């Protein structure tokens, strides 16, 4: 059975939507962060599919850049989360509520 590019794009969209839903629903900062990573990887899938359909390499190059950037984000993001966790012993975004008004 041959699977057309539409199926990959649909999968990518579904993964992206799952990521968005996770960011909006989940309260644990680590899980929220993982959902964002899921969104980025969903986009990578789209890039590679489009690279295939367009017959150019740009999409694959982009996917590599996204992976590098995602790795950098992990470093910074986990650094911030660890700093907060040390002070609070909790990573729930609901506990972080000094700033409001």
């Amino acid at each position, binding site marked *: 059975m041959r699977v057309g590019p539409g199926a990959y794009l649909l999968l990518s969209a579904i993964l992206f939507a799952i990521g968005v839903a996770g960011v909006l629903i989940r309260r644990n*900062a680590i899980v929220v962060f993982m959902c964002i990573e899921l969104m980025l990887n969903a*986009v990578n899938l789209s890039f590679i599919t489009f690279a295939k359909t367009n017959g150019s390499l740009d999409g694959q190059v*982009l996917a590599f850049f996204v992976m590098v950037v995602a790795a950098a984000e992990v470093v910074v993001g986990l650094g911030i989360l660890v700093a907060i966790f040390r002070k609070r012993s909790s990573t729930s975004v609901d506990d972080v509520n000094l700033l409001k008004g």
Partner: protein
Amino acid sequence: MHPLAQATTQPLPLPEVDWRAIAPELALAVAGVVLLLVVAFWPRAGRGVLAGLTLAGLAAAAALTVWNWDLERVAFEGAVSLDGITRYARAVLLAVGALATLMVAQGDSREGEPDDSPPEVFPLLLFALLGMVLLAAASDLLVVFIALEILSLSLYVMAGETRRLAAQEAAMKYFLLGAFSSAFLLYGIALCYGATGSTNLLEIADATGDPTADGTLLLAGVGLLAVGFLFKVSAVPFHMWTPDVYQGTPTPVAAFMAAATKVAGFAVFLRVFAGALGGLVVSWRPVIAGAAVLTMLVGAALAVVQTDLKRMLAYSSISHAGYLLVGVAAAATVPAGVSASMFYLLTYAFMVMGAFMVVQYVSRLGPPDDDAIGERSSLEDYRGLARRHPWAAGLLAVFMLALTGIPPLSGFWAKYYVFLAGIEAGLTWLVVVAVISSVISAFFYLRVLVVAYLQEPVGDPGAETAPGRTPALGVALGLAGLLTVAIGLAPEALIAAARSAERILG
């Protein structure tokens, strides 16, 4: 000779590296790396030394920008475009960077206390600026994404640079929402790439005129790009992070974010929407105009009820993003929209940085309102400021009146220019909404002046600590105030420069 051997002797077709085109960016990168090494290997270097090095890097970048002033080309196979927006944004961003360096150099410690912001903030500032300058020059969506991440990652760390809980909380919120919005932007890039077959803005501009392109896919991509950009420039309904982040981060960083990210964000917003996607203006203008209405009104209305000056400035920056969106909405059809937005960014950057500088000055006057938040920025702290610190209060008045748009201060011309562009583009209704928002915003800017000038100081003024010596902050405040007044009295040269920035893409 054998054809294959002939082929191997030929050099590989590498893209031409146009060093001169990105010379200012390179200077910033080099300065950033040098500072990082200095911080790592000479831990006892004073803040003055670090600030001096940072300023030297900025000066080098500025000199290279001037050297490149008349250079007009598309470099790196269309990835970087040296056009009017690029050089105007470069100049503004470097000036903002210099002011921010002075604010950071002053630090947030009071007399006799150790400074708790680490020296790494200087290289981070340079890297953030590098990202911003590159963002303003980007003419390929890939470069847009990379530049955006360079500046965002630096800013996430800068936001949480101090050990105060509020700063870390702000950093976390900024990081999570920033990464979230980056993902939307990236998906938008992917869909645009899928629909047009390229990430280059010039090629996308050509493809949007092509009826065979996949319209639905392209529109979905444009929508997601809009969401991403609206997040970055903190437009309603994607503005929720702004007040928390501005209030929580150290004041110099908040000032830098408020001024510089807006400049870079709107520069790329203009190039992508008014430039590359100009052919689809009928589709996206209602969205941008709607966001402008919401941003202006919601920002102004929520600013009215704030009791903390930093939070109020955050909401005010949201409503200013709304006026800028009027410029973006106009820009696709009238070139004045581009120059009006660029001029607005210039004046706004100095006004808002000046306002934050006064906040920084006042927060040195006593213990923080709340240990966790760690800063003294409640409106109560400004009661009777005019009697105690007439110069600070006078400058505060200049910045507040300029933000309100009272002539002949710089903010007035900026607002006027945007209104003019809006009317020219046939968006008179939008300009009327902007006028209403301006009147609402007069309430809260005036309230600051009411508190500072018209109310008596509370408590014992003698209990206040002296602000200490503030040479760097003093220079920065003087410059911001001078620019705000001088641009108001003689705007001609800068408007002419903004006019020359109307040329986008190529």
